[in-house]
């Protein structure tokens, strides 16, 4: 049974009885003629009775059928797939995928993209309710699509559309607002495909209601494949765009600590980045800052060029150790979610540093220690500890932020192994060479043909000849964080450094193409002075001369040594976990060392402040530690995890969860661009405002036009048949003339 676009018009089929009625009326009011030539009439009647009856019956049927066809053409029947017609039980399933990423909160002229989208959903519901055949409805928001560690949570799943459906839908939609997630359509399409399976017994219509931002659709090969797969299954695709133009938007895209030592009472440089996603420059944009809930002077961005990100620095200083919150906020614009950025900075009481010196006098270690912790009033928060190489193999190294090796001749095998473990796990290692070092031993233990900690092999100690003619500085530094502080100015302190002796590297040594080794400072003669490389998650810097003024005079009355060592310390220091960026929607994982904490972890989300906060049981991970994971990270802000140690003390860890700043890029793609991205996929694309204007667009082939053609054909046949059944008087004048002649 086909459905109709205008079902009430089907009653018009009763009009098909009209010709029969007219015939009956005519039969009743026929005229009477007293006729003389009955004889011929009777003959004719006898001869033509059957054929005439047949022809007239045919004419009657044709006229009735023509009226019925006209009525049907106006009512516009819709025919479904062949299976649906065969079984007569074809039902329609409306699957609405609603984009609720925070770019949908885009506001303009009293409405927002989300409001438009909700109105479209409401219209779909209303249209579905008007249908006669069974209808089902599924509503899934992008943010509720299945992800790692979380099931798909549709707002409606195969809900039967009945008379109260629109009220139910309105109530559901009322509770829905744009989320802070940056979820794209891909997960939603994938989830719904898995959730609903094959669509053999129903006509499935998938509505993708989104803002079609360029970010998600520029590289749309995956999406195209997903949609093409859906279309190949016979699913009708309707793409509804809820925004008609991109609006300018500013977003806070980064808030993080710059390099530098973190310790209580020590000023820390923070960086805040604002990106202008609009096409016009912005001027004098203030970023309001809060430290632990207290307002502090705002940072002002003088100029933000279009489609560019600008970073400004500011100093924070917390007198106490522990985790501290920093919140940056922009003035409100069209999208609110990306105007906030949360940061947690972990300030330890002090920064433990291990200095291992090979000589008993520990001359190098003392110079390094003095440079790292010069003492009051210059607070650095670093507490160096000087040890012999034996310490490395006997004690755990994890607590140290950076380990310095100075003038070490030989290490135990276990010490090398412990050091490699430490650096791989994210620790920093600085190696200073000296008179005690032997090239062969160092190469064998630390370089290991490029697999070891040392970024370069050594050949032998060499003299740097004093050049009295040319006044070239002995140090030639590159643009590296360690030396960046000296960049841009003619630094006389650095030029006063004289290096007399150093460990040369083989002449033919160059960093291997795939390796991360790079020379960050050279001597006057081009020999490497400092070489760095990444090792696992940590970093290693090797300096080919001594730390103490034995082979050089750097540490003697030259403040640039202290600055360089401080920068090196900041560069190599282990990255604290709290600075890792967590995104809204991603599960918040917490790794606990085994045996130290109770497995129950209580999380506090930014919204609830302790009441009804979810409690998560930590589960053992393959490496033996416990992992607690919070999946519901739907809002940005500071999350707290309350841990209970096995000794009964409780501990709170804080995590900053931020929105994906790229979602704030409101650049949208046009219908034509979308068509080129989705080439070969049959779909219907329209603006939200235009959706549903031309009446319900349902699955199925509309027979209206075809019926009109049939009607024209029928009317032609009817005319011919009627003409053959009718008397057409000849031209009277002609006959009269003929008669007279």
């Amino acid at each position, binding site marked *: 049974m086909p459905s109709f676009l205008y079902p009430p018009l089907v009653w018009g089929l009763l009009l098909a009885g009209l010709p029969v009625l007219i015939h009956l009326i005519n039969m009743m009011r026929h005229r009477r003629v007293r006729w003389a030539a009955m004889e011929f009439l009777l*003959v*004719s009647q006898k001869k033509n009775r059957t054929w005439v009856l047949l022809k007239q019956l045919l004419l009657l049927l044709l006229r009735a059928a023509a009226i019925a066809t006209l009525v049907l053409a106006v009512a516009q029947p819709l025919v479904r797939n062949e299976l649906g017609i065969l079984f007569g039980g074809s039902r329609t399933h409306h699957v609405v995928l609603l984009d609720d990423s925070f770019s949908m909160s885009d506001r303009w002229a009293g409405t927002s993209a989300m409001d438009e989208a909700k109105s479209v959903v409401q219209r779909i519901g209303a249209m579905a309710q008007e249908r006669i055949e069974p209808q089902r409805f599924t509503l899934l928001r992008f943010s509720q699509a299945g992800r790692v560690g979380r099931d798909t949570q549709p707002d409606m799943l195969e809900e039967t559309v009945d008379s109260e459906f629109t009220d139910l839908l309105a109530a559901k939609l009322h509770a829905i607002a744009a989320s802070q997630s940056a979820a794209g359509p891909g997960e939603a399409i994938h989830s719904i495909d898995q959730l609903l399976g094959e669509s053999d017994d129903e006509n499935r219509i998938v509505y993708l209601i989104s803002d079609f931002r360029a970010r998600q659709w520029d590289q749309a090969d995956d999406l195209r494949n997903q949609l093409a797969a859906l279309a190949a299954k016979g699913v009708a695709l309707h793409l509804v765009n809820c925004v008609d133009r991109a609006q300018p938007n500013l977003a806070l895209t980064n808030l993080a600590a710059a390099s530098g030592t973190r310790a209580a009472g020590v000023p820390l440089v923070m960086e805040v980045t604002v990106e202008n996603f609009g096409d016009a420059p912005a001027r004098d944009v203030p970023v309001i800052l809060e430290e632990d809930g207290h307002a502090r002077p705002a940072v002002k961005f003088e100029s933000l060029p279009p489609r560019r990100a600008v970073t400004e620095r500011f100093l924070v200083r917390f007198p106490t150790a522990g985790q501290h919150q920093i919140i940056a906020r922009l003035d409100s614009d069209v999208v609110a979610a990306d105007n906030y950025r949360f940061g947690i900075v972990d300030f330890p009481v002090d920064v433990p540093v291990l200095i291992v010196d090979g000589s008993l006098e520990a001359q190098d270690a003392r110079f390094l220690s003095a440079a790292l912790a010069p003492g009051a009033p210059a607070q650095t928060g670093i507490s160096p500890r000087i040890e012999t190489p034996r310490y490395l193999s006997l004690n755990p190294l994890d607590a140290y932020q950076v380990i310095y090796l100075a003038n070490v001749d030989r290490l135990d095998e276990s010490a090398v192994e412990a050091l490699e473990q430490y650096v791989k796990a994210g620790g920093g290692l600085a190696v200073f060479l000296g008179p005690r070092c032997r090239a062969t031993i160092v190469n064998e233990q630390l370089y290991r043909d490029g697999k070891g900690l040392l970024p370069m092999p050594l050949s032998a100690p060499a003299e740097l000849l004093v050049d009295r003619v040319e006044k070239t500085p002995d140090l030639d530094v590159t643009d590296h964080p360690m030396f960046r502080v000296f960049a841009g100015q003619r630094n006389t302190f650095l030029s006063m450094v004289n290096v007399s002796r150093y460990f040369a590297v083989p002449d033919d040594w160059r960093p291997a193409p795939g390796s991360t080794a790079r020379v960050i400072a050279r001597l006057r003669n081009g020999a490497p002075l400092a070489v760095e490389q990444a090792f696992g998650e940590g970093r290693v810097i090797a300096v080919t001369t001594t730390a103490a003024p034995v082979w050089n005079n750097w540490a003697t009355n030259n403040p640039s040594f202290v600055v360089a060592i401080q920068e090196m310390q900041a560069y190599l220091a282990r990255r604290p976990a709290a600075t890792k960026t967590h995104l809204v929607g991603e599960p918040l994982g917490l790794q606990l060392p085994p045996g130290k904490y109770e497995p129950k972890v209580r999380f506090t989300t930014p919204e609830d402040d302790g009441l009804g906060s979810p409690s998560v049981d930590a589960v053992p991970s393959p490496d033996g530690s416990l992992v607690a994971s919070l999946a519901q990270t739907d809002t940005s802000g500071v999350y707290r995890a309350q841990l209970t140690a096995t000794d009964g003390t409780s501990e709170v860890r804080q995590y900053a969860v931020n929105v994906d700043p790229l979602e704030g890029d409101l650049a949208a793609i046009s219908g034509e661009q979308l068509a080129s991205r989705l080439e070969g996929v049959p779909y219907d694309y329209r603006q939200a405002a235009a959706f549903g204007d031309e009446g319900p667009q349902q699955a199925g082939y509309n027979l209206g036009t075809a019926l009109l053609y049939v009607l024209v054909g029928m009317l032609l046949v009817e005319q011919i048949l009627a003409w053959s059944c009718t008397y057409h008087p000849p031209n009277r004048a002609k006959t009269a003339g003929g008669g*007279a002649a």
Partner: protein
Amino acid sequence: MSDANRFLMPEAIKRIARLDLRARHVVEGFLSGMHRSPYFGQSVEFLQHREYARGDDIRDVDWKVWAKQDRYYVKQYEEDTNLRCTLLVDVSASMRYGDGHLSKYEYASTLAACLAYLLLRQQDAVGCVSFDETTRMTAPLRTKRNHLDSILKTLDVSRPEHKTDVLGVLRRAAERFPRPGMMVLVSDLLVEREGLMKGLKLLRSRGHDVMVFHVLDDDELDFPFNGPTRFEGLELPEHLACNPRALREGYLAALNEYLSEVRRGCVGQRVDYVLLRTSQPLDAALAAYLSNRLGVRHRSRGGRR
């Protein structure tokens, strides 16, 4: 069509109520503009003198004029005809049909009256029989001009009724008018074909010149009916409710077959046959009569010599 003929159209004639006036109107209208009859003969009424020419009958020479003027003149008289014409007019029920202008009955009686007027004007003897299944009324053969009244009375039937028995009527007419003359049958001929042919044959065998004016209505010839109609027989008891559009072709086929059969039969009997529509001007009928009479005249003259 000339101006005079304008008044011969059935529409015009219908407005004239009295049959004698109708006849006069038609005939005078028809004759106006025509030359007088070129036939001269023995008659009581003198017409004119004419100079003698070779070949004229010496008996016709007016000797009194010769005596006065010494010239030969012949006297010419209006012809004293010996034509006896009997009008047989069908006044059966089927003649009642007519829609719009004249009914077949009216047309037939007007035609008969016109012919009678014309004949009497020309000193011919005219008789008249109106009939249906039997002879209704009869007017004997007379030549006097006031005989027209009695002929008109014969034609004046208040309401045509009854069926037609053409064979019986023709037989009786043959008995009634035994001397050979002219028999003019005015009818719609919706009768049994065999009887008609037999009757015509009988008349011919008695030496009559027979002329048939077949009067049919336009509706009967064209069958222009549309829409559901119930046909009720005027003479036959049958009736038929039908859509006439569907039956038209068959009807016309049957009609044409009938007409050609009648025409063939008449030609075979040497009977002059004229088919007349009631919408046709009456002068056509008169012209047909006159040309026929010319033939009769030639025949009769040829016969006398």
